[in-house]
């Protein structure tokens, strides 16, 4: 007994000594805000990150990082703790190895990256900058630095899907209720590989990723036809398997910086695994194989007064699309109407349109006290615009008040247009930031 106690004491002393010699650092942000709908001045009730906290623990070549948030919603006064990332990072001389729940960042463009599909998106935070709109995935990643080359590999054993708002009256693109997924992902393993090199003043990257769609798609239909009643078609959802080939580059042209990336997605409905003894006789499977592409072409320019002006052309295009319906038992092909194709991966802005032009600019004045940001998104495919402007004022260091305004305009004759649906989401946001 005494011996065990002694061992525990020694272990505790070793842990304390180890912690004492390590470096602990933290940063955080408290950001309460209210959103008021432009149309009727009513409050928009959606969850938001009231508190964000990043804690790091470093000792020699090892880091332990956690990124967490406290998500709050006003109407229910609910607060949920979200451990967004927790990973161990090892930095040997040749590169880095990270293990745990983490957010990766691939691609060269700012904010919209079709080549970056390692993490699902949190659609509640679609308009957040950078990694704020992504969801961490349990993964192991390694990056090797060799001369002008960076070689990176990521393996994700556990699948994660996008977080979509369901049943949210205040988010116009939300579905009424969470759809039932009849066919969850069977092979959860996902992996990616990326090589980046520097040629002169240009950076060039190539990547491959194989994983499962982050949003569900139609996998089958249960066709119930009872005599004397109207036939019922009950859609059954699953996730397609997608392979992404990406290319990205950064180059400089005079005073302009050009960042561009493009990705080709090869997506396929996986074979449905059915219980041989319980296959419904009325089940019709949908098999589709689609090749589509997404691209972002970004030009940025910084004025002499440090105002950054950026223009992005974001596009989404379906190439080949082959699909067929067949009966699950007889495997006989059936003539059913083909549903519209929706990408299950790629940049979230593809859900708004097949081609958008995004202008943004930002700058600071009065020695960082005043921050001005503005952006405009133009739908080039159909009618639609989004205008966003914000003004931030920081009277004291680490404190900032922000007033933001977002306005969507769609097409009154096209109620299905995403911009038309979002019109009612136009709002003014008043918030406070405190960083510590």
């Amino acid at each position, binding site marked *: 007994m005494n011996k065990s106690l002694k061992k525990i004491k020694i272990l505790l002393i070793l842990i304390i000594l180890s912690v004492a010699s390590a470096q602990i650092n933290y940063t955080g*942000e408290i950001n309460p805000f209210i959103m008021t709908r432009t149309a009727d001045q009513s409050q928009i009730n959606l969850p938001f990150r009231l508190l964000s906290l990043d804690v790091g623990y470093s000792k020699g070549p090892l880091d332990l990082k956690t990124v967490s948030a406290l998500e709050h919603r006003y109407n229910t006064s609910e607060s949920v703790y979200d451990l967004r990332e927790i990973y161990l990072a090892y930095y040997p001389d040749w590169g880095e190895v990270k293990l745990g729940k983490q957010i990766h*960042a691939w691609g060269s463009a700012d904010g919209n990256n079709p080549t970056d599909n390692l993490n699902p998106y949190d659609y509640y935070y679609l308009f957040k900058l950078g*990694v704020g709109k992504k969801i961490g995935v349990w993964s192991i990643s390694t990056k090797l630095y060799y001369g002008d080359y960076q070689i990176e590999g990521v393996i994700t054993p556990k699948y994660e899907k996008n977080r979509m708002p369901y049943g949210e009256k205040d988010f116009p693109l939300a579905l009424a209720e969470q759809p039932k997924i009849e066919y969850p992902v069977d092979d959860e393993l996902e992996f990616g590989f990326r090589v980046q090199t520097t040629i002169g003043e240009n950076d060039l990257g190539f990547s491959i990723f194989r994983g499962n769609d982050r949003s569900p798609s139609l996998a089958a239909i249960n066709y119930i036809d009872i005599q004397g009643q109207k036939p019922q078609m009950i859609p059954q959802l699953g996730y397609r398997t997608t392979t992404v080939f990406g290319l990205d580059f950064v180059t400089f042209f005079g005073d302009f*910086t050009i960042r561009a990336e493009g990705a080709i997605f090869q997506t396929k409905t996986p074979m449905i695994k059915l219980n041989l003894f319980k296959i419904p006789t009325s089940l019709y499977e949908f098999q589709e194989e689609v090749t589509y592409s997404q691209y972002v072409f970004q030009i940025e320019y910084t004025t002499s007064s440090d105002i950054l002006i950026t223009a992005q052309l974001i596009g989404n295009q379906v190439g080949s699309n082959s699909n067929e319906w067949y009966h699950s038992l007889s495997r006989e092909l059936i003539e059913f109407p083909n549903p519209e194709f929706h990408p299950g991966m790629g940049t979230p802005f593809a859900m708004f349109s097949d081609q958008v032009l995004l202008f943004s600019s930002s700058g600071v004045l009065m*020695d960082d006290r005043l921050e001005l940001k503005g952006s405009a998104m133009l739908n080039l495919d159909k009618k639609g615009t989004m205008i966003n402007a914000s003004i931030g004022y920081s009277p004291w*260091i680490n404190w900032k008040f922000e007033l933001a305004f977002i306005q969507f305009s769609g097409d009154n004759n096209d109620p299905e247009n995403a911009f038309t649906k979002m019109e009612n989401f136009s709002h003014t946001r008043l918030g406070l930031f405190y960083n*510590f």
Partner: protein
Amino acid sequence: MGRKSQILLFLVTNLMWGQPTGRSIIEKMDQLKQPIDVKILFKMTLISTKNGKERSRSRELTRIEKKYEDGTFKSKLLLRFSQPKEITGTGFLMWDRIGSDTDDQWLFIPKLRKVKRIRPNEKNRSFMGTDFSYEDLSERDINDDIYEMNGEEISNGTICYKVIAKPKKKGVQYGSRIIWVDKQNSLMKRVEFINKKGELYKILDIPEHVKNRDYWTATKMIMKNLKNNHRTELTMLNIEYDLGLKDNVFTERFLKRN
């Protein structure tokens, strides 16, 4: 030759040989013993003056720099912000190549979790809204300028040589610099930046130096922008020399590790 003429000739010759040239003054300053690497924590205060009232805003950052003698790089520099908290972890990496007109520069923004390569010809732009340009942060090669001695003058309470430095090549933000070099210790005390129109637009004052071990360090630097009545003050809070920093400190990998 009369006795008077002999004395005059002696004085002129003596003055000619005794007075150092502009280049020799800068060479002597350049030859001051410098550490191989250095890590400095400093406070950067931006001060604006309007209607006689001063308003200031401070940032805190660490500067890690290593000098090279391997023929490829002149120096490598890493800057990391720790205050204000909103930009904690934001980092800047610069590789200064020997014989190259442009540097390689990268910026790391934690919210994007990406290292962004910055256009190299942004050297003449303001560094993060300060009165220092990216170019001011990098050391100029002694052979990049032509020097001309311009007398002596007191600057920051010290008798200094005044040297005019004019860039040999085009593409530099200023037309010339007037450099005040402390006569006794060969320390840079003041630099006046003159634009290509011949107008004085920026003044760098270095009022304080301390000697730690064998090294002289400027503990305070004030860059005044005369066009907008604005200045940036750098105050050293902590300094460490010759830490034996490895090359991998000056990489994208380390830049991301905040």
